[in-house]
């Protein structure tokens, strides 16, 4: 499997995991003055309940890539689709068109007219990531302490789940992953992936719709 596919898989899986965990989430987040949550059991329970109730998600996203040496960020926009059990479409529409689809055990990328695909099961690591996703959908991803060191914070308006990778492959890429969600209704604010250099990618999910009828054809790329 090529490096680029590997990285795309890592990222895509990780993003999806947290998008699903944060399923309820939307709203503006406030990351200042984080207070540690000592007993997050209620939050975890609520997340699990919500996860179980979600059969599909359709939303828009705004992705910001921050590089320390650039004065301006790289901003892209697109649409995200998820359907239970394991169908995902991550479609960039601006300023470039690019699509990632995870369709059961197939990982497909479309760049312009070029389509690449491969079997996720052909790689042990990707199978493991697939299990993580399923664990997320079932609501028990937060028990996955062998993969991440997990801690919980809160500000005035948001809860923050902070994940520090423990698994070596993910640790090579990410320093930490943060999920922000609105306290009042558990709506997601942002998903932030921080690299070891301090550069980060931040994704904001907006215009979310749950449990809409979704044609599975969108999870096939031809």
């Amino acid at each position, binding site marked *: 499997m*090529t*490096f*680029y*596919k*590997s*990285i*795309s898989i*890592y*990222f*895509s899986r990780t*993003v999806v995991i947290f998008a699903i965990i944060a399923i309820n989430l939307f709203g503006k987040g406030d990351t200042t003055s984080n207070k540690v949550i000592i007993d997050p059991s209620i939050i975890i329970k609520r997340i699990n309940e919500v996860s179980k109730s979600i059969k599909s998600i359709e939303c828009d996203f705004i*992705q910001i*890539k921050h*590089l320390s*040496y*650039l004065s301006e960020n*790289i*901003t*892209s926009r697109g649409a995200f689709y998820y359907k239970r059990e394991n169908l995902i479409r*991550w479609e*960039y529409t*601006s*300023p*470039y068109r*690019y699509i*990632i689809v995870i369709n059961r055990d197939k990982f497909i*990328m479309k*760049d*312009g007219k*070029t389509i*690449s695909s491969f079997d996720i099961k052909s790689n042990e690591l990707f199978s493991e990531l697939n299990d993580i996703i399923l664990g997320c959908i079932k609501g028990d991803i937060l028990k996955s302490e062998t993969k991440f060191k997990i801690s919980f914070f809160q500000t005035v308006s948001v809860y923050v789940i902070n994940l520090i990778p423990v698994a070596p492959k993910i640790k*090579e*890429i990410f320093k930490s992953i943060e999920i922000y969600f609105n306290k009042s209704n558990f709506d997601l604010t942002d998903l932030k*992936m921080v*690299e070891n*250099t301090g*550069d980060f*990618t931040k994704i904001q999910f907006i215009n979310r719709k749950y449990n809409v009828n979704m044609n599975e054809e969108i999870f096939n790329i031809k």
Partner: protein
Amino acid sequence: MKKYLILSSFVFFFTSCSPFYYNSLLKSNKNISSGEINQILSPKVLVSSKYVAHVSALGKEFSGIFVIRELDKDVYRLMLITHTGVTILSLEVTPDKFTVLYCIEQLNNKYFLNLVNNDISTLLYLRIKYKLALMMKDVKNNSDILKLDNDEIQYYCFFDDRERISRIDEVSGNDLKKKILFTLENDGSAKSIEIAHNDYPINLILERIVEE
């Protein structure tokens, strides 16, 4: 026997003198100063820009985002990241130094990095590394071509109708090693850059990102 020798000589002579484009160029009467070289080969095309990078290598294709920024005079930071934001290659370059700040394991080999170094050097530092330049004339097409020569490698720079560089051929002897094609915006920056290697099955196309 005599007829055979004559025939062989004829064939040898004919093939060894077969027309070749670069050899057909004539030295122009136009002189070119070092200041003009500096201006012509200015790396303005790439300064502080973001591109979608489409890479075709060894039968595989992938794409990502290529970002370049000039940190200081002739000092550049370059990065290649995936569409989803993950950094896979980070470099800092000067005319004399090529520093890999970060490289994902699968790309971290000397062959690939040497190729990247060579391509970047061609795009950014030709005007620094080559002091000798000649204006050549393509009589057939009535066009001027700038030739940079260091005995081992020659660069032939072609111009568009606005006298801006539009193509660079890297040649060794009579062999075309690499071709770089520019599509320029009105301000001289590159809308797209295509690098095609003749010796290696690796091609790169950079398309400038215009954010809304």
